[in-house]
């Protein structure tokens, strides 16, 4: 139930055993290999990396184009292909994946080619469309010996200018209007070759923009038909290729297996590079949990007797990686801790401490018995039906436990799907009424006070954890002087507040102010003890009283639980109200609309408020609770293990 102790080890063994040993470490997945000081040289890995990237591409490409439809449940739970080591070996040996991968990448290339061609043809067609009425192929425009012609576009204004200019010339010139589209006029000008020079001048005067058409040897109309033909041809070709790709679907499974295999190979090669070598031996530095060392040695001795393991000194304890170890129940709540990040190696694991508070806070923030029931049953059924393994179901488990507390708080507050008890059969209403302790909507103040008391308890707990942890690590003096004084001062203030309510006898009440003053003096005397100068000591001590505002706002922050809880109940009530409104308003099918509103509305309310309850209960841990005893910022242990994208290696099927 804490941060698991971790060791830094160096393994030295013979090079001839290196592959086997690396494979063993990879399979065990309990070590984190340290990078040796020399730089990694990735050039030897280039071909392996290329193969892996290609296979990964092939899997993605095939998945996108294949007929195989993934089962929705499998997709949600990210189901892996289960395979034994023997089968894995067989697939890798017998399956010529390179050929398949190459064919698939060829398919992709020709698909791209075809698509680009189609795009090109479409563009050419767009150019030709306005010239449909031109009766001559573009390359024939200048083919006669005496007469030449040119095509181009002009604006209306320039067209008129051109007409004028032509009139001034001889009559040997003809201007044909081919088409008008928008502001542009499409023109063909026909002239005697001997005045070509003059025509040139005229045209440049009127801003003639010369057109050059695709499909030069065909008249535009025929050119368009030709392009259409080409496009159909390419589309057929694409269909053909897609059909072919589908016939490769059967290889998807094997490709996925090979893809994972190659990624593991890559990792092992990288680990090899992280080793240091002498002529005959290699050495490898790694982190490992203390508990796993024995097993590692046992497994190693199965491979060879010629190895040595030595423990390396850890220079900076706060920099080693962190593994959290908790029992089955608390492990689920690592999901909450993980959002914040791991504690430092020399700090306590907050998970077991936050668990009870998180469950209670979540229950208060949702406080709706109906929703609690739905949450409990829903998460339970999802875990059972989908058979989600324990390590992947942390969040679901957290929600399950929180569902229980939501149910309890909801029942105590008399909130059942926002239903008004007066509308229920008396038998049920009586039972629910009896369970109900307080109607928060009518009388919110007691719950407001309760949330703040809970907050106060959590803050004190945080300070106590700090004392416990520091004392355990030989810093009892700091623990008592810092957190101890604060606990005393906070309790003193509460005591003083209670004496004002005249619960105790006069004699006890008279102590109130003195206790508070004792706390103030205690803080002023202790909090400046690091400073050397007496005055600085004093001012630092006085200044530390300012932290009281921090504690005060921390406690107030817990009032959010009341607001969130009220919100759930009131929205649920509103949904019921709207549903009944619609039922009475619409004849005949009113009840149907009402059911739709009820189901949809409550689902929405549940989703949005579970989210709210989760993040706000989490925030109370991270912002109000954690800083009392930890800073966080530890690095999580990243084991050298076989990470599975598609494949899970099992020992027997």
């Amino acid at each position, binding site marked *: 139930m804490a941060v698991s102790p971790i060791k830094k080890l160096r393994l030295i063994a013979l090079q001839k055993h290196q592959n086997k040993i690396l494979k063993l470490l990879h399979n065990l997945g309990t070590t984190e290999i340290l990078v040796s000081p020399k730089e990694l040289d990735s050039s030897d890995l280039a071909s392996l990396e290329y193969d892996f990237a290609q296979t990964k591409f092939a899997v993605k490409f095939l998945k996108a184009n294949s007929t195989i439809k993934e089962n929705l449940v499998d997709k949600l739970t990210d189901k892996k292909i289960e395979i034994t080591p023997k089968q894995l070996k067989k697939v890798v040996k017998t399956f010529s994946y390179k050929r398949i991968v190459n064919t698939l990448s060829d398919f992709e290339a020709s698909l791209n080619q075809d698509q680009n061609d189609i795009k090109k043809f479409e563009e050419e067609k767009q150019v030709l469309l306005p010239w449909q009425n031109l009766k001559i192929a573009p390359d024939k425009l200048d083919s006669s010996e005496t007469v030449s012609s040119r095509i181009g576009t002009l604006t209306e204004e320039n067209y008129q200018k051109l007409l004028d200019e032509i009139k001034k010339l001889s009559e040997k010139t003809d201007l044909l209007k081919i088409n008008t589209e928008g502001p542009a006029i499409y023109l063909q000008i026909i002239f005697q070759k001997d005045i070509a020079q003059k025509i040139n001048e005229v045209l440049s005067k009127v801003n003639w923009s010369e057109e050059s058409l695709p499909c030069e040897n065909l008249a535009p109309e025929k050119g368009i038909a030709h392009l259409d033909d080409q496009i159909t041809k390419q589309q057929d070709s694409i269909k053909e290729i897609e059909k072919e790709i589908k016939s490769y679907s059967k290889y998807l499974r094997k490709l996925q297996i090979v893809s994972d295999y190659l990624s593991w190979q890559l990792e092992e090669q990288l680990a090899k590079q992280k080793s240091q070598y002498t002529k005959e031996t290699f050495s490898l530095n790694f982190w490992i949990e203390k508990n796993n060392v024995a097993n590692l040695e046992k497994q190693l001795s199965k491979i060879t007797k010629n190895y040595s393991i030595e423990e390396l000194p850890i220079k900076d304890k706060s920099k080693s990686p962190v593994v959290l170890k908790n029992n089955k129940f608390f492990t689920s709540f690592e999901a909450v801790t993980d*959002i*914040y990040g791991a504690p430092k190696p020399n700090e306590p694991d907050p998970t077991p401490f936050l668990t009870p508070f998180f469950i209670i806070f979540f229950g208060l923030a949702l406080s709706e018995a109906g929703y609690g029931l739905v949450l409990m049953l829903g998460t339970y059924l999802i875990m059972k039906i989908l058979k989600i393994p324990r390590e992947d179901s942390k969040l679901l488990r957290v929600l399950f436990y929180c569902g229980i507390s939501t149910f309890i708080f909801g029942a105590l507050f008399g909130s059942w799907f926002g239903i008004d008890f007066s509308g229920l059969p008396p038998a049920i209403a009586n039972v629910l009424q009896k369970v109900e302790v307080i109607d928060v909507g009518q009388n919110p103040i007691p719950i*407001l006070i309760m949330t703040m008391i809970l907050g106060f308890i959590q803050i004190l707990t945080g300070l106590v954890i700090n004392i416990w942890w520091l004392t355990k690590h030989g810093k009892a003096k700091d623990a008592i002087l810092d957190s101890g004084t604060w606990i005393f001062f906070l309790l003193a203030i509460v005591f003083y507040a209670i004496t004002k309510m005249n619960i105790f006898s006069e004699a006890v009440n008279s102590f109130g102010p003195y206790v508070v003053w004792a706390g103030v003096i205690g803080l002023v005397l202790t909090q400046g003890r690091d400073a050397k100068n007496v005055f600085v000591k004093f001012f630092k001590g006085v200044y530390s009283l300012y932290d009281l505002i921090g504690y005060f706002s921390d406690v107030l922050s817990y009032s959010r639980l*009341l*607001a969130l809880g009220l*919100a759930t109940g*009131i*929205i649920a009530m509103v949904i019921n109200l709207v549903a009944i409104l619609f039922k009475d308003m619409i004849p005949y099918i009113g009840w149907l609309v009402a059911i739709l509103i009820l189901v949809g509305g409550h689902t929405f309310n549940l989703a949005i408020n579970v989210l709210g309850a989760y*993040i706000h209960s989490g*925030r109370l841990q991270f912002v109000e609770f954690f800083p009392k005893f930890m800073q966080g910022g530890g690095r999580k242990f990243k084991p050298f293990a076989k990470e599975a994208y598609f494949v899970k290696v099992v020992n027997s099927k």
Partner: protein
Amino acid sequence: MLGIALAICGAALAVGLAGTGSALGVGIAGQSGSGVVSEDPEKFGKVLLLEALPGTQGIYGFLAAIMILQKVGLLGGEVVQIEPSIGWQILFASLPIAIAGLSSGIFQGKVSAAAMGIVAKKPGESGKGIILSAMVETYAVLGLLATILLLNGIKVG
């Protein structure tokens, strides 16, 4: 009649202003979110979660409005004829959630939009983005709490 009109004005401010805050916030977050989804459609779930966060202010405002309407009997039943002074009280009681909802909605949207970067680059850490965004919501929650407590304290009829 003035009393009822003032109470309705309070309800309208709560829904309108807090809703505006949410609309702007969700809008800002959605714009950045679309960019992430266009690169990697599989991150839609996480993006949607972040985008939805600034949406709660609108719900809080709506909640306050419902409480007001219920108080003056505009939600079915008989309309309570209240004094103008009570109407003013209800109007002012709606302001905490209206104002806090407006401003916190916008800024929570901005934090959510920035947190989309976490979803894009380090999807495993998106929980931290959610918490950062939820920090802003605190003030809307406190605004709602103040409005609820104030409304609870006002005696009608």
